[in-house]
């Protein structure tokens, strides 16, 4: 919403990582508007359900279109929007629970299709909105409200998962760095195909990992985030896998395959094989 709306009663907790992601997305969209000359109403933000999904209501300034739908289904909704109007810039915003748990079944198909959208995932390693249950990216053994004796499952490695599923653009970002993050989102939007910008976006209330991510050198805590080195070749999938083996959270573009057609391009290429008929002609085939 562009102005304060007293009726809208949701607020992020102070310090929530999602503030930084919102800022980064705003910057990326403004930059896109300025560089392409396209209006904000050419962008559609499809939001998942969670604290993170509320981002679609909390965007400030000129407003894009938005859909705040149902839990886990932002990807197939985005599929419909994009394939209905390929000229739109479609962005998904969702949490780790929404995207990787209930909605996990949709990542593989969009990767295979190379659907031309950009998904910005706010990973806080927890279900924030439902108050602190474990999520796929919660560390094994962690005690949460839903894992009183510690989480039994191993932690999912989303970046590895995306690479394995064949997502054509994979980036990793941190909510504490809105400007660099906005650049990653901007590249993701520019990428012709399925791009995921996976963001570490700590939940200050249920799983505060800020210090762990940023480090606190005064107290001897090394940051777990580190910048993807300049000489990393993102078009090299093996190099991308190797990067993810090095521990911690690499920040930057992990993988970028620019050689694949996006789904809308593939569809367009089929048109010449088809011989579209009018409804009258179609009906004629049944006439006798």
């Amino acid at each position: 919403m562009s102005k304060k709306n007293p009726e809208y009663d949701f607020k992020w907790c102070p310090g929530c990582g999602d503030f930084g992601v919102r800022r980064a997305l705003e910057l990326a969209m403004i930059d896109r508007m300025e560089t392409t000359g396209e209006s904000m109403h050419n962008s559609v933000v499809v939001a998942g359900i969670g604290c993170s999904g509320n981002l679609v209501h909390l965007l400030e300034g000129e407003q894009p279109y938005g859909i705040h739908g149902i839990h886990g289904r932002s990807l197939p909704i985005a599929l419909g929007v994009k394939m209905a109007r390929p000229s739109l810039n479609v962005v998904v915003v969702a949490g780790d629970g929404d995207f990787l748990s209930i909605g996990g079944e949709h990542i593989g198909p969009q990767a295979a299709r190379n659907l031309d959208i950009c998904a910005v995932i706010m990973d806080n390693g927890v279900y924030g909105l439902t108050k602190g249950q474990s999520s796929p990216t919660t560390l094994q053994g962690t005690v949460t409200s839903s894992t009183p004796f510690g989480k039994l499952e191993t932690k999912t490695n989303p970046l590895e998962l995306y690479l394995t599923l064949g997502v054509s653009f994979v980036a990793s970002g941190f909510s504490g760095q809105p400007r660099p993050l906005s650049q990653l989102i901007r590249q993701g939007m520019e990428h012709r195909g399925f791009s995921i910008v996976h963001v570490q976006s700590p939940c200050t209330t249920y799983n505060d990992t800020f210090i762990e991510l940023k480090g606190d050198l005064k107290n001897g805590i090394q940051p777990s985030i580190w910048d993807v080195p300049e000489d990393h070749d993102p078009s090299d999938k093996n190099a991308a896998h190797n990067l993810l083996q090095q521990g911690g959270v690499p920040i930057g573009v992990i993988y970028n395959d620019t050689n694949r057609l996006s789904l809308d391009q593939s569809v367009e290429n089929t048109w010449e094989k088809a011989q579209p008929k009018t409804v009258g002609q179609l009906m004629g085939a049944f006439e006798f």
Partner: protein
Amino acid sequence: MQMRDFVVRFAGEGGQGVVTSAEGLAQSSTQVGYHALTFATFPSQILGGPTWTQARISVDPVLSAGDDVNVLVAFNREAYDTHCEDVLEDGVVIYNSAEFELEGDGRSFGLPFEELAKSTGNNRAANMVIIGALAHLISMPQEHLVSFVEQRFNRGRAEDAEVIRSNIAAMTLGRNHLAESGFSLGELAPPEKPEYQQLMIKGNEAVSIGAMAAGLDFYVGYPISPATPILLYMERNLVGKDRLAYQVSSEIESITAILGAGYAGKRSMTATSGPGVSLMSEGLGLAWIAEIPLVVVNVQRGGPATGLPTKTEQSDLFSCMYPAHGDVKIPIIAAGTVEECFFGAVKAVEWAERYQGPVILLSEMALAERSQNIPKPDLSKIKQAKRKTYTGSNGYLRYAGNELSPMPIPGTPGSYVANGSEHDDMGDTTHLGERHVQMTERRFGKIKLLEEDDFERDQPEHSIAVVTWGGSKGPSFEAYNKLKESGVPVGWYYTMYLNPLPPKMLKELKQKDLVIVPELNYQGQFSSILRSLGVKAESITQYTGLPFKARTLVEKITEMTNVCLKETVGV
């Protein structure tokens, strides 16, 4: 006496030509001016398996698959054993003598279908041998069949002439062989060829073309019997700029993708069957609350869960009218004939755009796979479905007020958030009680926009009426006509608009002492909905996986009518 109508059942294994023979007979008959309808069952296995298809050929428009079988064509022993009891006493059995032999029972005749076909040099003409034999039974002139073969196989290829020759030869062989038997059913009255142009088409095809006639832009789907043919038809034909037909990876993707497309301004649709509808539940609720036009076609099959995938049933009315949690009641159109599959699809697409929300079109297995001759729809009378769209500037309040409001389309000014949470007029989430009241009333109020005036009505003066829905229309109307002839005091009302019902029809039904509802489910789903609307409705139910027979309905309706009349007189 001349017959006006006869029924042939073809039974055998999948792959033996059961379906092609029935369709061939139906097609050749309609071509010469008869009316025809086929009823197909499916084997539950991919290759082989027992299957049967019935064709009813008539001088008059055909309403149902027919109660009795005049001729059984048995491709193997098992088929004969299963179906011989359904053959009328004065009926005939033609069986494949290459497979088995029957004792001379005075009504069975063996023909080596394939051998005869081979002798013409065309191994694939076995069904023509059969059609020739049937033509003899009903004294159908040879020239009718010849002209059918000529039309059917004239494809502009070099081998056409040979194919036509061998098919005619096969037909003649079948005819001559049966003539030796001395069997005959009499003479089918000459056709009264309709003046109007016609199509020979199946329910699923009619749905597909109807939706396209209304201007469908966007279709996605996931394969499921018996709805798959709609997906395949769309993938071949809804192609090109600004249109798309596409297979997605689940019904959850189907419903949410058409929702995204509907939001983006496209007339969008998916088709599925019961299990798919169950998966679409949450998405349908989202379309309802966020006010997004879309159409779901449910080609019903039997049973809950995986149920009876190859049988027909009308048991999804509840799950389609009330598919989702919360206060939701989805507009429903139920096709009752192949022709209504076409016009129901036109209406469904138009309704969705008109009231900006989800619409479900109900079809069923027996309609989907039924071939029937229908009058060719007049495309010049069909208007493309239109949505009220917003054309103003930014700062629009999409959900303001209690009535339908123009919908902004992404790519043009008027950005808003289509919200699946309860929302205020700009689409932001809210928890205020008065907002939920306003928005709930707004959503239900829009249903009024869908009220239609037209419905079928006959003998409205009676205090008892027959009111069926969907594919039970045919056998019910056939039964009704017989009841009317014999003076049973019942009226007839029918509509394909199940929600909302045409208000005038509902008003009249409320005044009846009894409304009798034939329907193919255990619970009496439509009568129970009618009762909730204040109609004294009672069902005649059947849940065998097969359609009603008109005879059963005549008996039951007579019985219920008598009981009701006694009761009302007694008071």
